[in-house]
């Protein structure tokens, strides 16, 4: 039945398809056997997994998985040894023997179920509901989209948001439930299911309110009796407690199917005004983002458990009021910078983070997602809200304006169907099972630890740890998690010869797909142990330098956030030097003799660029931007993340096809067009000559069609990049020596600076910086690596 499955390398190192059919990439594809060896490897042993990556070859099995006996509970997989005669399978992870249940009776060498096909290391189970009545009851719950809209905006921006909202409403599936919260100085929760007149629940922006209070005040609490009403003797007890006019305390007053409320919502949007509370001169608008999100989260708390819901927050400025406030109303107080955070001079930061942390806990508990669309020239508090977005697996987009394509197109993308669809899914849980001797330190990425401790948990924790199970309230096809492992062989297994040379890891991802069905995706991988310290060959062979660079970037970002006074550059340099000392090929104290295996060859360059990147050099950015970059770094695939660290540069010229160019200032040339993909921005850079020709309009002349094509080619390629990416990158089109050229120059290796001794080639460029160039960096590296 799975015969027509496309084949693919089962467990080999990713070569052709970088992520392989399993969507799993590891820093080391051959694992050191001992703790000591592992620490000598410098780069942590980690796996990056894309739990629900779209894969054309995915096998979907319409029945429930077969599980090993607890506590292992691993799912039957191609690595299980099967005794067809005895109808027994042996779990590769715990080596338990399990009998096949009766309905597997027909199993034989020639008739194996899909999950045992060797190439089907990743399968998905879509078990039917247990019985018919349950099926009826569990009718696919409609996804909920609760929009939380900032109204402390200028008219123009509000106009942009409104049109974006209208477009989004048009794209929503009819059955999706929609709700609307608007906020400014106060929070307005719109009751959509009330026809007589527009009805709004108003919450004050200054006061933190608990979920219980919100439910109570909305008449949605199950308790049904308000405090204070209790025990009034002789007074008729309130019947069903409901606020307003609906006798039933149903949340459906606020959340209506898109098809039912589209008209109402559009009318509401038409009437929606900017916040009417006065803003005193010299003050910021009073904006209570925190309470608005509390209210939204509280409202969703009244939904049936297990309902997938997203809070889509459209925020146009910093929260200045109530919980979650990041800056005071007084304009003379600037929004906190990295420097302030460093010096602990951001008075609101920790309080706000704590607030959003609690909000994150609530949302995770409810299984709901917070998406953040921040569009403002100034910061809006992404740094503080990061925790709530990341823990719930929410999406985040940071733009300058609601009118900017970065926002508009990204926002549209999340509602789009088909090819472009992000495949937004809900209620994911990830469980990891692995061979003994392997412990799990934790996960970096958009998820939350479920604190399900077990034997597999390592003592040291990285990111979301202390568990073998994680919640991903929201996840999509590109969601990527980084799992850090610890190698801690027990006494017995460290004895050579006895144990299995292979290690096994199984990832089980339960989630609700965009259609609302519950799925279980099972990915089982195996890697080889490498025994002994002598055997560096095998380790080197199994090294994945891209993954290593990304894992290191994620790891160091985390460390920078968690550890005070952490010197990232120094830490990176020392790691790189250690790595090169360990795996380089050189004679001691002879820098010239230093060479690296091809598997390591570009790693130093990655490190060079990582040192210069926004992830490490945070002072060039606002805390909001840094938080934004890191959130995306943590959730994107390796390929995308590599681009974030080391942008790709393509060169277009008359005489050659488009070709990758060195990320070096030397690549600039007057007669070239460069296309830089720095992930967050895509820059088309016209050399001076090209720009002049273009300005003269040659491309419009029939005899210069080639020039027109040359101009067009990078545009097309840029569009291709942009189309597939979420969030939509910022497209910058600039000319050499133009002001926007800085977007390119900042990313290039400053091989030629204003004080460089080299003659600069005509038409090329220099970068005004004191940064070291890659060459100097490498020279130092060689020298230090070979030091005894």
């Amino acid at each position, binding site marked *: 039945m799975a015969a027509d499955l496309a084949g693919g390398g089962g467990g080999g190192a990713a070569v052709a398809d970088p992520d392989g059919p399993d969507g799993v990439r590891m820093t080391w594809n051959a694992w050191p056997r001992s703790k000591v060896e592992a620490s000598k490897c410098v780069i942590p042993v980690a796996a990056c997994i894309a739990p629900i990556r779209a894969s054309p070859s995915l096998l979907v099995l319409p029945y429930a998985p077969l599980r090993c006996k607890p506590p292992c509970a691993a799912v039957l997989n191609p690595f299980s040894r099967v005794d067809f005669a005895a109808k027994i399978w042996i779990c590769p992870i715990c080596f338990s023997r399990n009998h096949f249940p009766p309905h597997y009776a027909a199993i034989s060498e020639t008739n194996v179920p899909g999950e045992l096909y060797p190439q089907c290391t990743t399968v998905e189970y879509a078990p039917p509901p247990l019985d018919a009545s349950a099926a009826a009851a569990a009718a696919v719950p409609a996804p909920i989209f609760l929009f939380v809209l900032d109204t402390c905006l200028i008219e123009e921006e509000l106009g942009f948001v409104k049109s974006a909202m209208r477009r989004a409403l048009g794209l929503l599936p009819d059955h999706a439930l929609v709700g609307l919260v608007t906020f400014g*100085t*106060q929070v*307005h929760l719109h*009751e959509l299911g009330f026809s*007589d*007149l*527009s*009805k*709004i*629940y*108003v*919450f*004050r922006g200054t*006061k933190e*309110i608990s979920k219980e*209070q919100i439910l109570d*005040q*909305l*008449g949605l609490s199950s308790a049904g009796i*308000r405090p*204070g*009403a209790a*025990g*009034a*003797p*002789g*007074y*008729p*007890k*309130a*019947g*069903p*407690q*409901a*606020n*307003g*006019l609906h*006798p039933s305390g149903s949340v459906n007053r606020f959340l209506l199917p898109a098809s039912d409320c589209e008209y109402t919502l559009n009318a509401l949007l038409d*009437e929606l005004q900017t916040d*009417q*509370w*006065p803003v005193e001169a010299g003050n910021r608008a009073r904006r209570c983002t925190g309470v608005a999100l509390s209210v939204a989260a509280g409202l969703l708390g009244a939904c049936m458990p297990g309902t997938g819901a997203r809070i889509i927050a459209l925020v146009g400025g910093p929260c200045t009021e109530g919980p979650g406030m990041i800056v005071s109303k007084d304009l003379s107080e600037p929004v906190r910078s990295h420097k302030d955070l460093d010096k602990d001079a951001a008075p609101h930061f920790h309080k706000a983070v704590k607030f959003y942390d609690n909000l994150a806990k609530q949302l995770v508990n409810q299984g709901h997602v917070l998406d953040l669309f921040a569009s403002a020239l100034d910061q809006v508090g992404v740094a503080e809200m990061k925790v709530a977005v990341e823990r719930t697996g929410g999406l985040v987009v940071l733009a300058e304006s609601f009118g900017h394509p970065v926002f508009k197109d990204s926002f549209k993308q999340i509602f789009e169907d088909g090819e472009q669809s992000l495949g937004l899914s809900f209620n994911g849980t990830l469980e990891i099972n692995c061979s003994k001797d392997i412990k799990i330190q934790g996960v970096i990425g958009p998820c939350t630890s479920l604190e399900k401790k077990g034997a597999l948990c390592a003592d040291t924790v990285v990111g979301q740890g202390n568990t073998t199970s994680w919640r991903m309230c929201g996840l999509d096809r590109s969601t990527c998690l980084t799992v850090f492992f610890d190698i801690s062989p027990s006494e017995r297994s460290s004895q050579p010869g006895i144990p299995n040379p292979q290690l096994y890891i199984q990832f089980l991802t339960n989630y609700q797909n965009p259609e609302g069905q519950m799925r279980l995706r099972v990915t089982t991988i195996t890697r080889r142990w490498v025994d002994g310290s002598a055997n560096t060959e095998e380790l080197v062979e199994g090294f994945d330098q891209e993954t290593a660079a990304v894992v290191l970037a994620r790891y160091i970002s985390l460390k920078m956030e968690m550890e005070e006074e952490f010197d990232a550059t120094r830490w990176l340099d020392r790691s790189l030097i250690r790595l090169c000392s360990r795996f380089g090929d050189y004679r001691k104290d002879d820098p010239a003799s230093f060479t690296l295996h091809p598997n390591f060859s570009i790693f130093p360059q990655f490190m060079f660029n990582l040192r210069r990147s926004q992830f490490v050099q945070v002072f060039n950015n606002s805390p909001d931007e840094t938080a934004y970059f890191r959130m995306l770094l943590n959730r994107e695939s390796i390929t995308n993340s590599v681009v974030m660290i080391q942008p790709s540069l393509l060169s277009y010229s008359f005489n050659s096809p488009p070709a990758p160019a060195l990320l070096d200032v030397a690549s600039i040339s007057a007669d070239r067009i460069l296309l830089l993909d720095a992930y967050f921005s895509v820059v088309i850079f016209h050399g001076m000559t090209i720009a002049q020709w273009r300005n003269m309009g040659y491309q419009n002349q029939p005899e210069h069609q080639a020039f027109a094509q040359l101009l067009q080619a990078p545009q097309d390629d840029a569009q291709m990049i942009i189309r597939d990416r979420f969030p939509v990158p910022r497209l910058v089109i600039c000319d050499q020596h133009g002001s926007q050229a800085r977007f390119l120059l900042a990313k290039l290796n400053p091989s030629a600076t204003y004080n460089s001794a080299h003659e600069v080639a005509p038409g090329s460029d220099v970068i005004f910086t004191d940064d070291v160039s890659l060459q100097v960096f490498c020279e130092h590296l060689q020298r230090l690596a070979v030091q005894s």
Partner: protein
Amino acid sequence: MGAPPSSQPFISPPPSSQPFMGPPSSRPFGGPPSSQPFGGPPSSQPFAGPRASQPFSVPPASQPFTGPLASQPFAGPPAAQPLSGLPASSQPFSGLPASQPFSGVPASQPFSGLPAPQPFSGVPASQPFSGLPASRPFSGLPASQPFSGLPASQPYMAPPTPFPGPPTSSSPFGTPSWQSPAQQGMPPMPGTTQAPPRMFGMPPHTPGQTMAPVPPVMGHSPLAGHQVSTQSKIDPNQIPRPVSSTSVPLFETRQGNQANIPPPATSDFIVKDNGNCSPRLMRCTMNQIPCTGDLLSTSSMPLALMVQPFALPHPSEEPIQVVDFGESGPLRCSRCKGYMNPFMRFVDQGRQFVCNLCGFTNETPRDYYCNLGPDGRRRDADERPELCRGTVEFVATKEYMVRDPMPAVFFFVIDVSMNAIQTGATAAACTAINQALADLPEGPRTMVGIATFDSSIHFYNLKRASQQPLMLIVPDIQDVYTPLHTDLIVPLTECRQNLEQLLDGIPNMFENNRVAESAFGAAIKAAFLAMKPTGGKLLVFQSVLPSVGIGSLFSREAEGRTNVSSGDKEAHKLLQPGDKTLKTMAIEFAEYQVCVDIFLTTQTFVDIASISVVPRTTGGQVYYYYPFSVLSDPAKLYNDLRWNISRPQGFEAVMRIRCSQGLQVQEYSGNFCKRIPTDIDLPAIDCDKTIMVTFKHDDKFQEGSECAFQCALLYTTVYGQRRIRIINLSLPCTSMLSNLFRSADLDSQFTCFLKQAANGIPASPLSQVREQITNLCINILCSYRKFCATVSSSGQLILPEALKLLPLYTLALVKSIGLRNDGRLDDRSYWVSRSASLSIPMAFPLVYPRMISIHDLASKEDDGSLLSATIPLSSEHINDDGIYLLENGEDGLIYVGNMVNPDTVQRIFGVSSVDGIPTQLVLQHFDNDLSKKLNDVVDETRRQRCSYLRLRLCRKGDPSGLFFLSYMVEDKIPGGLSYVEFLVQVHRQIQTKMA
């Protein structure tokens, strides 16, 4: 002390010194019944025999007249006869015939000395008000035109226009005057300029008397005359009772530089302000001020002012003049800040003036300077209202404003909880508001807002052109806030249509509301927050006990019931506010000039004791509709609301009373908020509100000097002008106790007692309050007896003429709803709350309602007033074949006997039998004389009381009939004395004290 009365008996013939005379003093009341006129077979036993009726009527003034006339040597007859040419024989008692001859003429009799027999009949034409008569404040049917044109046609605050008084047509104010009217405002004969202050019953013609500047004579009330002699009996028909009159005398506040004694507050009169204010605006408990505090305490009488600064004037009166001093603002004494008034004395050729309040000599500002005439008055005194009028209004300058004058803001808050919806209260409130919108002051400064509430608060954004209103719900009722910065309160002109539509829609919108809880406290707090920037009037329609949110209450009624029955001493605590939250809120409201009026349309206990704190503190009032009936109450609700918003009123007011050195203000009492000792803050003040101010001595006055009182009320008109209303009253000082008694003002004193009782009810057990009130009465009478009527035999009960009705009203007060044991908590609390701000004319009907018979209306003489023939509140006067209307200013009870002629029933009620009359009475118009007259009577009463009577049918033999009979305060009831018994008791106690 005053001249011994003994010397006067003869001099002051008729009314005054007429003690009731008991038998020889040796036989007080204690004796066997037979010998005791009072103690005897009470009600059934009239006082003296045939002519015994005269004892009260006082023929022989001086006669401490013993019961049977015959036995009296000096007995009245001879004395009376010569003098009283017209001894109103038909009304032996009421007329006090003896007195009439002297004091002039009974009302009905034109008085030769007067300019015109009908003093003011001619005047109206020249008066600005003459146009008004047509308008009738309360017409029967709400829909048609109740309160018609009045306020609308006559914008109250427009500068020159004074308050539109109630129409003049007939006698606007029912006058339970108990003396022949001639005594009152009779202007003295032209020649007798030096006439002493007039006293009741003072015979001007008696030679020595008239001349005496301060006559030592005092008026005794004739109430006396019970004695041991067995044949003497008290005739219940002869004991003092209020009498109504129909004439409308002219009252000049001062004459010959002397203050005149004002006519009874309940009577109809026309005031000519010539230095002192109209007694309607300010009235003192005594018209002469005791020189010392000792004298005051000897008299046992209270010294207090009743200030009703916006009291409706008689339509024929001159409007209050507005004076604009320009930028400098009104001229004031530089020491005490008292305002310029007619009693400031200009000296040194007018270059200086001496303040009549503090005595400081001020320089006259240059531009105010004016020469003095030969009489020592400024030559321009008559041109300047502030120098010749007791009441003027100054235009306030910037100095008197902390901000621009506030707009007229009306915010309506409506209960939409399940109960309110189901009883129809919400619909009634919405309809009432909708109709009343037309009566809000016109203009762009009139702002309105609306909110509804159950367990959450719903605001409405009305400022949405061409769109339906937006409902904004504030769900946090523990810690409320306003949901919008603007647009909750919108100029009426911009939102009228929206508002009307919304009001129409609210009952339907909440039709299926199942929320039984009511967040009253939170709702008013939230509305307050919306009004905070401006202040204004908050009108709340509440139907159930506030059960949730801030200031929520719990039902204390059940607890109360058990406590009362078990005689718990703490029972009165249930009449105190349940918690302090509402009080705290109310103080904050007052600070921001928000006045709260509460309309309680309820069928259950709502804890008025707690709720009423808010209106009391903010200058508002409680309206109580219990048990709310959707059939009969909406009309009253509408009319009350309409009058509330359209009556003369002012906003953001501050009031201070200043008085001459020698006295100081002791306490203010009424509906206001007091933050500093000297001033009271009135977020709103209207024509129905009265403030009582008590005084105490801190120094002595010189005999012959005058003591001045000045009330300064700074306020904003509904049209946004800032004004200072100055009300002046200057009264002579005396060191004679007898003068005090003669110039005592029963109306003010009784109202003072009422308010004291009301203040006492929540503080002490009922029995104690009743005792206190009775003692107040006894002490006064005792003081009089002891110091002013010593000559009389101790067997006589001697009442000062001016206070002869005090026992009756005291008895009525003791039996009133507030002081009765059997009342509901809420009824009592409402009574207390109502009393707090009650005006003098309304205080009387509250305790001594007016009863008239209506079955015979058609046959009565149509002599101008249908209300004149009042019946004493005694069940003796109620016949089984009669129909009676009893009204107390608020409710009208129609009592139908069980043997009424079916034809009468048919004509009045449109049904053939008594049993067929619906209990929820809505008076209808039928095409017959009787029905017309009844409707006229009811309408007239409504107009008079400025209150839409809530009619209720009482049938004999029904609980409702018993309820009606509980108003018969002269009857003996279980635990309560009859009037006659009460008199006996009073007498006995006086005797005890004297002994």
